[in-house]
């Protein structure tokens, strides 16, 4: 009797400690399990936007076709599931009331029940993050697979992966319709089919009326890069799929604008809900009013992203040079190299592709554009993806996220930060995807 009591004691201790041991060893168990080619799936989690790859309360079972009703009921009872529903032919879906984390174990057990032909999790499919816009293949800056672009009769082969990793970023953020990006520029073409659904009512500071109609094309081009309507089977993909664009016209038909109008435009954008201001413009003269305007935006929690200029000078434009308040963007090319036109200097924060950037233009058309202007619009689009995900982040922290996530693409010649690329070529995926701790 005494011996029996001690056996009982040992069994009880095992009952308690076995699950604990199993818990600690689960990582190595999963590794072994993954090597098994019969069933090979693992949980994957995203940032709260997508779930697991399969349902945790359902499995799909295919039974032998010669079973009668009694056999089918017997098999179902043996599985321990609560509900059963016939899908079609010999396929059934077994369902539990609660989700479980050990579907893998359950499937292994059910597979061994006589009469069960196949068993698998009820996998979950997701909307593909590759949008169906026909010109996406020409937008190498979003996803560069080494494609060939034909521009003005000349074939240009771009270098694979010289892009901002937009497709990877879209798994985590596609923008938010609550986020407004102001394009302070030459206005925007309100009738462009790839833009019209994204545009808010803006203002024209050139003539002083509410119609920020583009008579130059530059603003329409920047708006398309940032947020053209995406996955509409038309034209191009914008970077920030769901963001709204606030057109603010400060440049005239010749692409010229007074500092006073630009300052007013910046303040207007801040006061009308913009969280990001794209300034693909600038001048070589410093200015109190311009500095005050970008400072006003910064202090109100609005990020200002501006281009450094296209004159290959070792001097950058204002307001980009006000780096206490502004993120200064230089241009790289389709092979992650320096361009022949981008200004440079210690103020450069980050670079983005700026050569042959396909975007929207006037009269419902599309065009390749080149310069630090499109590079700036690309960074504004990335900023939109980040802010859509983390709406409490300050402009200063937003700039740092963009800079620190950038790829040091010229590290062989200029390791670390440098006057041409700043922290490197912007990388949208690194900026929005979670860092996996190891």
């Amino acid at each position: 009797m005494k011996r029996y009591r001690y056996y009982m004691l040992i069994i009880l201790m095992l009952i308690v400690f076995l699950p604990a041991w199993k818990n600690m060893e689960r990582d190595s168990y999963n590794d072994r399990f993954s090597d098994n080619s019969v069933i090979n799936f693992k949980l994957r989690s995203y940032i709260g936007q997508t779930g697991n790859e399969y349902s945790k309360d359902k499995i799909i079972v295919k039974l032998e076709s010669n079973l009668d009703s009694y056999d089918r009921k017997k098999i179902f009872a043996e599985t321990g599931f609560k509900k059963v529903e016939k899908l079609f032919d010999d396929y059934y879906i077994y369902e539990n009331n609660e989700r479980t984390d050990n579907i893998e174990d359950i499937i292994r057990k059910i597979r061994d029940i006589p009469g069960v032909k196949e068993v698998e999790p009820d996998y979950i499919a997701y909307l593909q993050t590759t949008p169906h816009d026909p010109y996406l293949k020409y937008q190498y800056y979003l996803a560069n697979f080494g494609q060939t672009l034909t521009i003005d009769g000349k074939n240009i082969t771009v270098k694979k992966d010289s892009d901002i990793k937009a497709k990877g970023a879209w798994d985590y953020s596609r923008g938010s319709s609550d986020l407004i990006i102001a394009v302070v520029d030459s206005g925007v073409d309100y009738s462009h089919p790839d833009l019209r659904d994204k545009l808010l009512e803006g203002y024209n500071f050139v003539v002083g009326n509410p119609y920020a109609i583009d008579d130059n094309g530059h603003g329409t081009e920047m708006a398309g890069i940032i947020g053209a309507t995406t996955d509409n089977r038309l034209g191009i993909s914008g970077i920030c799929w769901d963001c709204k664009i606030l057109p603010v016209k400060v440049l005239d038909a010749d692409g010229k604008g007074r500092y006073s109008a630009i300052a007013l435009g910046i303040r207007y954008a801040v006061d009308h809900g913009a969280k990001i201001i794209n300034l693909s413009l600038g001048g070589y003269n410093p200015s109190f009013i311009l500095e005050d305007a970008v400072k006003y935006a910064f202090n109100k929690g609005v990020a200002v992203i501006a281009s450094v200029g296209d004159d290959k000078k070792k001097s950058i434009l204002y307001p980009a040079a006000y780096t206490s308040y502004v993120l200064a963007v230089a241009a790289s090319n389709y092979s992650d190299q320096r361009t022949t036109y981008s200004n440079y200097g210690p103020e450069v924060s980050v670079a983005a592709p700026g050569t042959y950037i396909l975007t929207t233009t006037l009269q419902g058309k599309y065009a390749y554009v080149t310069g630090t202007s499109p590079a700036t619009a690309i960074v504004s689009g990335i900023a939109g993806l980040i802010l859509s995900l983390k709406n409490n982040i300050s402009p200063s922290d937003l700039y740092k996220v963009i800079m620190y996530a950038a790829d040091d693409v010229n590290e062989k010649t200029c390791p670390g930060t440098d006057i041409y690329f700043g922290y490197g070529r912007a990388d949208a995926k690194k900026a929005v995807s979670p860092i996996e701790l190891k």
Partner: protein
Amino acid sequence: MKKGLALFAVMIILVGFSFAGDINFYGGLKGLFNSIKIKYKDSSVENKINLSSLSFGGKIEVDEIYYFSLYVGLTSAKFSEPVIFDNLPFSIKFPSDTQRGYYVNLNFHTYPFEIKGIEFGMGINVGMFMLKNSQWDIQLPIVSGMFDSDINSYDFNFNFLAKGEIFNGFYLYGGPSFLKIFGNIKGTEQINNDLTGEENKNFSNKKLMGFLVGFDYEVEDYLMISTEIRLINSYGLMVSLNYIF
């Protein structure tokens, strides 16, 4: 919070002694495994935490009515899915690896009524799982940084109990159980010494009410084993082995 609970534990023991009449002491080991479904505050995301502990301590029995116990030991915790910190400047996917730390358990139960050989009473159980802070390096293309985690979990358990002797030295008990589990996973990120962020993910258990059943068994005059199964959310399992002084 931690100091307060520890002080509370000491006070309960002192109060127990001050009322002491006939006193028995028990000393021994306790093993615990809890698997609990949790949800994060202000979020629809769910997870599961598995908490295991091995502790030692003692129990004081006063007048065969009041029981006070205090156990301290080691614990390990494992989330079934990674925890995503998505409000930090750079989002972090915190791994579901096992985290280790310390465990304190405080229990009071009493059986003041007896009807036809069945004792009726109530019990309160407080558990603290204090996991060690862990630190990871973050490496970005040019700059680097650190991520620190700090995880704590507390459970408060209130039970109405009925207890009866099934055979000589074997006591079965059980009853409805209220369990509140709450905890916090704090993530702190610092990159390049100028980009910092802190995010707290507060969690609690999904269901509060359940059922508890267990037994105490005097294997010998000097040896008692106890087990307890708690069915709330998922399940909890406890076994203890005590020497009776």
